[in-house]
């Protein structure tokens, strides 16, 4: 289907199902129950899940295939966001031009950064990209304030020119829309104790994510994708096979930069504001983590990684002391206090601690990420099954 083989079509369909059914899947607990706080089926979070999925899918095309570790991809996401918000200020609140322009600008910026950074490889490349991203962040915060809004950031206002849209009355807030369909349109579906939210913005983001994912599969399975894996494997042989590695890596860099820009544009489309902090280098580190956690170089890994991290971030940050007290209430008082003291540093505001630990644990024990973990478990089961079969077989003649 769509020029994919059976296995890839299967993966695409699984991701499509997960994305489209997310309002159900992420809301497994009935409203008002103690577990309801683990529900993630509200639009804001679901949107972020798929948007960061796009970011990670793009990053994976660079890091997963070529092995070039960029520590500055948040800069492209930021550039995309700023471009999108300016389209909304100047042209129209329709998200289509905003998203197109965000991809375009991020692409151009990544072409410039990539063209310079890719003259070096290894650690030098990582540091160059980091330097560029930090430079962009510093500029966005200071000199470029007229364009970026500096510390306060930017958002569309009622008195922006917006040449394609009609003028708004004072106090009216401009809303992002897709040809009139507003991003925060939607409806709630109540089934018994469950309430499922269907949100226009989420579904638009999800469809864009599916297209982005489909394109990434095509790239993985193309001769170009094979060349990128060859770059990672042995640059020397590439050169002595008459292949110029520079345009290949640059193309991968720009593609991943455009994915980042797309994610940045979508972020603005869903929540019409932007600040420089989304370009900070920890944001670049986060997308690296998503990709690795899921499984760098695998198709579905980055999607899983992004989903996992954003979900965990949201849930873990929400747990506070009283929630913990509720959980451990069944324990005797002394033990309860100890348990709370032990767990408390890792939840709520301690999310970054958990994130850092997760980062280390994954790199140390599971360099292939969740996908590798899944494969190992699958192999274990299969191995067990296979050995069962052989014992069965050896028994049979004896009978």
């Amino acid at each position, binding site marked *: 289907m769509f020029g994919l083989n059976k296995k890839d079509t299967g993966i695409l369909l699984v991701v499509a199902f997960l994305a489209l059914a997310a309002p159900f899947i992420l809301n497994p607990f009935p409203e008002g129950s103690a577990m309801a706080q683990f529900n993630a089926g509200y639009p804001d979070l679901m949107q972020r899940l798929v948007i960061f999925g796009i970011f990670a899918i793009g990053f994976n095309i660079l890091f997963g295939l070529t092995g070039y570790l960029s520590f500055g991809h948040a800069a492209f996401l930021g550039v995309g966001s700023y471009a999108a918000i300016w389209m909304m200020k100047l042209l129209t609140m329709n998200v289509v031009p905003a998203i197109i322009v965000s991809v375009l600008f991020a692409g151009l910026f990544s072409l410039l950064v990539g063209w310079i950074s890719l003259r070096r490889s290894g650690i030098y490349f990582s540091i160059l990209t980091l330097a560029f991203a930090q430079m962009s962040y510093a500029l966005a915060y200071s000199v470029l304030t007229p364009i970026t809004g500096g510390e306060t950031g930017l958002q569309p206002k009622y008195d922006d020119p917006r040449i394609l849209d009609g003028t708004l009355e004072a106090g009216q807030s401009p809303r992002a829309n897709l040809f009139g369909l507003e991003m925060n349109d939607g409806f709630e579906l109540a089934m018994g104790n469950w309430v499922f939210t269907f949100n226009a913005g989420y579904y638009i983001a999800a469809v864009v994510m599916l297209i982005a994912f489909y394109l990434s599969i095509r790239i993985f399975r*193309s001769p*170009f*994708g094979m060349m990128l894996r060859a770059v990672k494997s042995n640059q020397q042989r590439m*050169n002595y096979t008459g292949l*110029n590695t520079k345009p290949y890596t640059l193309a991968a860099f720009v593609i991943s930069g455009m994915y980042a820009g797309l994610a940045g544009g979508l972020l603005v489309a869903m929540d019409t504001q932007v600040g420089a902090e989304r370009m900070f280098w920890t944001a670049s580190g986060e997308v690296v983590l998503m990709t690795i956690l899921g499984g760098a170089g695998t198709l579905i890994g980055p999607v899983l990684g992004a989903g996992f991290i954003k979900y965990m971030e949201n849930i873990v940050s929400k747990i506070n002391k009283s929630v913990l007290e509720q959980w451990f209430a069944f324990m005797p008082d002394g033990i309860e206090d100890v348990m709370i003291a032990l767990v408390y540093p890792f939840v709520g505001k301690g999310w970054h601690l958990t994130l850092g630990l997760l980062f280390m644990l994954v790199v140390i024990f599971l360099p292939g990420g969740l996908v590798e973990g899944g494969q190992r478990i699958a192999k274990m089961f299969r191995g067990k099954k296979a050995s069962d079969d052989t014992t069965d077989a050896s028994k049979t003649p004896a009978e």
Partner: protein
Amino acid sequence: MAILEVKNVGKRFGGLQALGDVNLNIAENSCHAIIGPNGAGKSTLLNCLVGKLTPDTGSVMFDGQSVLGRKPYEINQMGISRVFQTPEIFGDLNVMENMMIPCFAKRDGAFRMHALESIGQERDIIAKAEEMLVDMKLIDKREMQASSMSRGDKRRLEIAMCLAQDPRLLLLDEPTAGMARADTNNTIDLLKQIKEERDITIAIIEHDMHVVFSLSDRITVLAQGTPLVEDTPDKIKGHPKVREAYLGEIQEAA
């Protein structure tokens, strides 16, 4: 007719004169061996031919065109392929993919943005890669990850990858270094077969005299960065200068 002409090539590293004044002509469709003791400048010379190093003086002409100042991939596209001392293959890729990459390089040149085409649709590339694998008796291993093959198979694959580009000149840098005797003999047979079946010029750097005398039509002896003598294998064997500089090693090896 010389396909490769090396004229007055010199290369200096700091205080060390690695190549003095090298003149060398390699005739088309011949097998030319370059021998010499360690540190004679063999590898430096080879690196000057493929664009890894640029000589300080002199010229290197391939088929009437200068290779100097060109990048390795450009020189390769001119028709020079190189086999390394330790096999350089794409270890993370499987054998079939390893084989397809030079086929793409031959067909599409140094870069082509075929990002939305599917590998499965590239029937001519697949056919050619499979044909090469059959030729090289590697077809059974087509799905195997290249890094997990034996050393002999890696060497075979690397040579196959070079040949898939139909190069006019094949450079071999100690192709049997570190190989067991059986693998060495297999490699000699393979190279002999290639020499007979294809219109190809081979230049080989080698330590193993057995390999050199079984394959080459002409031999250049290099010592301290300058060619000592160049002649046919029979003459080289009896050459007094060569005996003096080098023969101890020949007898040892034999």
